[in-house]
């Protein structure tokens, strides 16, 4: 089985320039990431904000150019494609943005926005309207809303429109860059359920970029954990959640609401990606760090469940995770409201 999308050693640094335009350093947003996703699989890329996961998502679609590394989609070298060949390929790979208030052109009706990929790629000629109506009902919106403008919709509705637009050209791969984190908690669950349903029905390959492990747990088959531009752990979702091998993953899991633990394991801020720590990048915040960690950078190690930690086999066992409760936060919220309203 070959991967639908495979990246090897992707690097992207953003130079920081002084007033005269000379480079005086670089934000090492993505610093050597290798990743693959199989057809029909949901891969989650998780990490704190600033770890480079959004940059990675854009690199994978070649929306920004990598400094080095290789990128293959359906076995074809994406980096070797000309600009126009790449535009044709975009039909097969789509992106859903975090901010539903920014990702829709304010001067385009819903219909024009969803029909745009159809026009661009010459799909459903002559019956774009029907296709738009079909897509709208697929994402749970009434087709009558097609002639309205983005500003007339709520955040959740806009995100549904963005999803419909991403689905329009029948892509093979969709990357969702924090697709629900800008939404209200009550709406998040609905949109996650919508996405999960669409992935299953349409057999989509999905890369979910998220910092929300609750959402990830609900939909991901496989998880890659990112820290300061590198992947520190990667494996099947079940295995990774049950038996996290990297101290950073453990800290993230402990911080998931509803785990009954204080998120005290992670102290301090994420270090600057301009000057990442020497050796293991996590050693400045790691409760298990040894002097050795400061010196030598660990490689991703393992067969199917890989982690980049020198001591992954000698860490104390992780506390067991509670069963996944997709609607835990919703219920928590509901109980809060109930308390407020009942005398």
């Amino acid at each position, binding site marked *: 089985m070959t991967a639908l999308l495979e990246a090897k050693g992707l690097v992207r640094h953003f130079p920081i320039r002084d007033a005269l335009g000379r480079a005086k350093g670089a934000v090492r947003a993505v610093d050597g990431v290798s990743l693959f996703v199989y057809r029909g699989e949901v891969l989650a890329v998780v990490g704190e904000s600033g770890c480079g996961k959004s940059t990675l998502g854009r690199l994978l679609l070649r*929306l920004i150019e990598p400094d080095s590394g290789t990128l293959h989609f359906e076995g074809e070298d994406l980096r070797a494609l000309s600009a126009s060949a790449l535009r044709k390929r975009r039909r097969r790979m789509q*992106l859903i*943005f975090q901010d539903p208030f920014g*990702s829709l052109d*304010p*001067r385009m009706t819903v219909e024009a926005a969803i029909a745009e990929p159809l026009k661009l790629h010459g799909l459903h000629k002559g019956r774009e309207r029907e296709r738009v109506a079909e897509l709208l009902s697929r994402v749970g919106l009434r087709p009558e809303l097609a002639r309205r403008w983005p500003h007339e919709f709520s955040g959740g509705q806009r995100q549904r429109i963005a999803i419909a637009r991403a689905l329009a050209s029948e892509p093979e791969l969709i990357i969702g860059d924090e697709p629900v984190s800008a939404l209200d908690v009550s709406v998040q669950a609905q949109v996650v359920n919508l996405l999960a349903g669409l992935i299953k029905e349409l057999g989509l390959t999905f890369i979910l970029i998220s910092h929300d492990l609750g959402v990830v747990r609900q939909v991901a088959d496989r998880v890659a954990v990112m820290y300061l531009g590198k992947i520190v752990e990667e494996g099947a979702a079940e295995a990774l959640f049950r038996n996290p091998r990297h101290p950073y993953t453990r800290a993230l899991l402990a911080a998931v609401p509803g785990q009954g633990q204080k998120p005290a394991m992670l102290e301090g801020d994420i270090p600057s990606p301009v000057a990442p720590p020497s050796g293991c990048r996590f050693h400045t915040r790691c409760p298990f760090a040894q002097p050795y960690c400061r010196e030598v950078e660990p490689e991703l190690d393992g067969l199917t469940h890989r982690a980049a930690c020198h001591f992954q086999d000698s860490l104390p066992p992780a506390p067991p995770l509670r069963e996944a409760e997709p609607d835990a936060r919703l219920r928590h919220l509901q109980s809060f409201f109930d308390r407020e309203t009942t005398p």
Partner: protein
Amino acid sequence: MSASLAEAGESPGRRALRRFLRHRLAMFGLVVVSLFVLAALLAPWIAPYDPLETSWSRLRQAPSWAHPFGTDENGRDVLSRVLFGARASLMAGVVAVLGAVVIGVPVGLVAGLAKGWVDAVISRISDAMLSIPFLILAIALAAFLGPALENAMIAIAISISPVFVRLARGMALEATGTDWAEAARALGNPPWRIAVLHVLPNILPPLLVQGTLAIAEAIIAEASLSFLGLGQQPPAPSWGSMLNSAQRFIEAAPWLAIFPGLAIFVVVLAFNLLGDGLRDALDPRGSR
């Protein structure tokens, strides 16, 4: 509510129009501008006299019922000349700004979207032009092209165009940083399609505002050039050249200066009010 569901939503443009129509000062500006436009268009029919007809029997007469704005040093009716002068001023204002938009906006868009050395070259040229005072540049160009109303319009258009280059470039740069522009790229839009179908409609509102305000500036510039003898050529009437000949009689016949001066003042004020009103109506952060 359910009945209106199937209806088309309110477009951003329509929403701005609704706000604009409620803006009092802007509506005042619009009315005044419309009156001037009507006066210019209908000048041959509403002007009481031929603006070129001289008469030795009525030199520099003060305003009266027969000549509400008085007569000039050649016995021509000032009201008729002000009405016909509106043609030169408005035409110069509108045509010069249209010219500046046609030159400036595509160039600015290219600079903002292409970035790199293309942007650097275009930006340095427009910076250099902006570092020369607008009127000095217009005078130099008009003098170089030769005295005629058409040449004055060309000179003004060229002198104003860097303002539009800069505005379009800045807005295009800002637009390329937005999620919707990136989304357009992710969908497979080629660069020209992003520029024309996405960026241009989004930068239209500030261009409209700037264009309206620029008309006011262009009208002043045309009057200044005509005042200096570089614009409308005598005997054809223009507010600027009327002011020029009026200065010799400023004490003996002040009406010769007052009425064309007032016309310039009122029409420029009206365009400025109109532009400010458009800005308020089109600003998405504005209230209502």
